[in-house]
């Protein structure tokens, strides 16, 4: 836990700028399941990218690339919307 700022060193109004705040990895909020993909079934429709509330689906250009597990909270929306069932939820400890 970093020391707390005194009032003289805060940005006016407490405005947070990225350089001044920690970037917590909210992927730690997952409660046991994480998304996994079978790329042979993926058709790059990008519905998972569109629906992900945490911008945790990475793209290579317009192609699906993978998940950003630092920020994926395991909400399962990607698995739900995937039209080809390429995405499934697997136990956190499953090696990928």
């Amino acid at each position: 836990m970093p020391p707390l700022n005194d009032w003289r060193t805060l940005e006016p109004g407490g405005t947070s700028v990225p350089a001044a705040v920690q970037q917590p990895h909210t992927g730690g909020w997952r409660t046991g399941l994480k998304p996994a993909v079978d790329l042979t079934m993926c058709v790059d429709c990008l519905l998972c990218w569109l629906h992900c509330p945490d911008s945790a689906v990475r793209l290579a250009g317009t192609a699906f690339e993978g998940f950003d597990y630092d920020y994926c909270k395991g909400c399962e929306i990607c698995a739900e919307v995937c039209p080809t069932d390429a995405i499934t939820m697997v136990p956190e400890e499953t090696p990928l």
Partner: protein
Amino acid sequence: MTRPLLLTGGEAVAHAVRQIDPDVVPVYPITPQTPIVQTFSRFVADGSAHAELVDVESEHSAMSAAIGSALAGARTFTATSSQGLALMAEVVYIAASMRAPLTMAIGNRALSGPINIHCDHSDSMLIRDSGIVQLFAENAQEAYDLMVIAPRLAEHPDVLLPVAVCLDGFTTTHAAEPVTLLDDRAVADFVGAYSVPHAVLDVLEPATHGPFAMPDYYFELRRQQAAALVSALDVFGDIADEFEEVSGRRYGVVEPYRVDNASHVMVALGSTAGTVKDAVDTLRERGEPVGLLKLTAFRPLPADAVAAALRDVARVTVLDRADSPGGVPPLAAELSAVLYGSGVELEHHVYGLGGRDIHPVDVCQLFAGGAPAYVGLRGEP
């Protein structure tokens, strides 16, 4: 020198707003503020002002939109009165806490109820502790001048707070007086370009404005905001010096009028200060050592300037155009605190609620002493 124009206070403020050239003006009409934005909207329609005029659905929305645009990097103005300010009040606190450097005009009007449209200061006093800067104008010229000064004060890096220019409803908003305007170019040069730290729409430097503050930071942020408000006193002085160079007109956070060698001084806000000046002149001709101390800044309270101006005075009479039922009226409470322990004899009176007139003869009677706590009220002894 430009010839004076015959303008109402509302029109004079609208000219100042045209010249400070805001980018966004979210506003909702309400008497007696309406002539300000009505006149300004004509300037927009005629092409002499470029602002995006946003017809919002309420004053709550007006201030909400104003915060958004001010923090997005757009110079922003709004205006209201009375019930509009009461509805806006919740968001005025947020404007101050988010350090949104917007400016506004308040056409001072009594709060309901009973419903009334005429002048008193109960609306401004409702947002006394919001953290907004409150400047009170005595007449149309001052309303114009303070409106030109306002964006400089709001946008100063040490301040970054909303600034309200308060002018008395009808007495100042609707009465026509000679007003000397500055050249458009001179005002543009004086106010300069708008800038705000971490503008929301600066996508290269994203920032979170108005974050949630838990018990570990709320207190620090309130203290920071209070310090910024107090710093507006010194900043006002610096800007007023520059304004004097441009306009030839001198402003301070207080205006002492014939206070030298005065033993009895009246303290007032707004247009009543002009009435008191007339009474002071009359009484001075009779050899009575009286004077006036007008507070141009009410928030932040210029406590040191007030104490200095009243240092050699034996007796002070405070006039409040707002009551604090069950307590001490706002200006009287401030003066009591500033003069505590000084030995100055202090009395205070409430006058003029709901637009009840006060005349120089009333002020002369107040100077004579023995006036009731409520001046001009039927049923007082």
